[in-house]
């Protein structure tokens, strides 16, 4: 990859105490991301993708235990003291959450929530900060930005609120934006507009982005590289074309096959993945996908497959019986 990576995650483990025992939400994950590139992280609910993003941001719940290294721009965030970490926020790494209804404070105006971010990190007086905020709102496609500044979140639609959240995230020119399912709560026409906005801003600002979603379609057209997560582990990582065309991990293939395709004829039966999502309070000894996998062997039940690199550069997978396909999608 070009130049040293902007972000490198090494052997990160996150454990959460829950009423039903200790939950290992993130299980020894390694990832890296170059400046200006987009990494898509895909997985079903409970696979640990959101917890991984919170680990990077060091926004884990108080009771969570984190180990491993998160090296951003040369600094290991896990070792950073609270004050240094706080100054890095919004200037270095910014975040956009999933639900626009709850990610803006309901009793503070849009203006306040923008101005306070600007004044915290950039030496701007109130008037300059307010002017800059209006510009930011206009840049993310919000009509009549001046009036919006004095409005409250409940007076805007879901799509508009997500644009405000993006404006806030981009306000201090971050080097990395983490978008945690930014469009899941939005309708498909609004989703397309928001994803375009994120892509445009990323190109313009030469910013790195981590796009977290459960929808393979969202990452297909918008990420340079994709990592697939299952039960807290990265089970496959590859440049986007290789992942879709030449996947090795049976879970990736099964996930793609299970999605109804718009071009498929009506009533074509779907290749459903049998069984139930993994219960991480009772981790299995072997590979977590074994109970639901078609290529399962006895080795899969005994030990967890390590992440091994495939033939093409930057493509690795965690499976003892990988799929040997060159193109197309296996049944």
């Amino acid at each position: 990859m070009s130049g040293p990576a902007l972000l490198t995650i090494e052997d990160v483990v996150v454990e959460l105490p829950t009423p039903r025992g200790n939950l290992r939400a993130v299980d020894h994950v390694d990832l890296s991301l170059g400046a200006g590139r987009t990494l898509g992280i895909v997985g079903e609910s409970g696979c640990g993708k959101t917890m991984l993003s919170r680990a990077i941001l060091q926004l884990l719940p108080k009771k969570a235990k984190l180990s491993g290294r998160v090296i951003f721009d040369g600094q290991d965030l896990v070792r950073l003291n609270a004050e240094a970490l706080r100054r890095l926020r919004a200037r270095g790494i910014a975040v956009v959450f999933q639900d626009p209804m709850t990610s803006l404070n309901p009793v503070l105006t849009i203006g306040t929530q923008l101005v306070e971010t600007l004044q915290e990190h950039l030496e701007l007086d109130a008037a300059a900060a307010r002017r800059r905020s209006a510009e930011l709102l206009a840049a993310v496609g919000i009509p009549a930005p001046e009036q919006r500044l004095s409005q409250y979140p409940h007076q805007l639609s879901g799509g508009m609120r997500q644009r405000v959240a993006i404006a806030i995230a981009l306000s201090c020119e971050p080097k990395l934006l983490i978008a945690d399912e930014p469009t899941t709560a939005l309708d498909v026409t609004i989703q397309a507009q928001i994803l375009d906005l994120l892509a445009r801003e990323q190109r313009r600002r030469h910013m790195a982005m981590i796009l977290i979603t459960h929808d393979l379609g969202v990452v297909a057209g918008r990420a340079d590289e994709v990592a697939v997560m299952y039960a807290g582990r990265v089970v496959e990582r590859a440049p986007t074309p290789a992942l879709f065309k030449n996947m090795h991990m049976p879970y990736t293939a099964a996930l793609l096959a299970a999605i109804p395709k718009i071009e498929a004829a009506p009533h074509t039966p779907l290749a459903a993945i049998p069984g139930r999502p993994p219960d991480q309070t009772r981790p299995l000894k072997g590979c977590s996908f074994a109970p639901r996998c078609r290529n399962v062997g006895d080795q899969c039940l005994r030990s967890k497959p390590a992440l091994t690199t495939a033939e093409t550069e930057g493509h690795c997978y965690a499976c003892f019986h990988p799929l040997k396909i060159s193109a197309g999608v296996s049944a």
Partner: protein
Amino acid sequence: MLGFVARRLLYLLPVLLAVSLLTFLIASLLPGDLAYVILGDQATPDKVAALRHDMGLDQPIWWRYLGWLGHVLVGDFGRSFRTGQTVLQAVTERLPVSFELMLLAELGALIIGIPLAIACAVRAGSAFDRFVTGTAFSMLSVPAFLSAILLIYFFAVELRWLPATGYVPFSEDPLGNLRCFVLPALTLALGEWPVLMRVLRSDMIATLQEDYIAMARAKGLKPSRILLVHALKPSSLTLVTVTGINIGRLMGGTVIVESIFALPGIGRLLLGSIYTRDLIILQGVVLCVAAGYVLLNFIVDMLYAVLDPRIRHGHA
């Protein structure tokens, strides 16, 4: 916003009317006859009949209610046949005492309750949190008259720092006035702060788990701003509603505290009218207190609407 105020005002009038009707009907619960009670046991039948006539007691009940309401609306709540003083005079004379007591008590409760609630919310589940919540919980189970006795026993009887009873008007001696309000106000405050603290604490804990707090932390804001602006502001709304509800408990408390500490307030007036069977005063005081309580709750509702932008600015 004005629509909201108008609607609430419109709702207020029937409630006040119903309150006046209920107060009037309570009086009719009296076993036997008001006139007989007034004249006492040596009343002769014809004297009772005469009194009944000029008090209009022989009229149908709804006619008497309308008559009574007519007088009330012009401020004539009737005159006590014991003391000869009109209800209005008695009430306005004693209102400042009760008002000062309630104000000091509520302030005390807020001063104790709010900081503790924030501290516990931030350190939810810690030993400090469990200790303070436990204390608040047990304070809830200490009735006002109990804490009054305890306070008197320690501060007045044993340590003799503060007067157990007596009242000095503020105009004469402000410091003396405050001294005799310390124990009564503290008695009420000890009963109020746990309620405020528990509500604010559980609301703050819920708020601190919201996405917009994670967003505030992700924006790198100072922890103090996150706590006191982003978390406290939305949670303080529930505090306003709780204070509204608590005014009723507070008014009840003043009756007890004024009687124990011999403060000449509305509460003591009410008790006096019960002990001396002065039913006109009783009816008038109950009506004034209820009307006051309804108006106070109305003001709290308005305060809530002003504070909460979601109501102030209506729809999305």
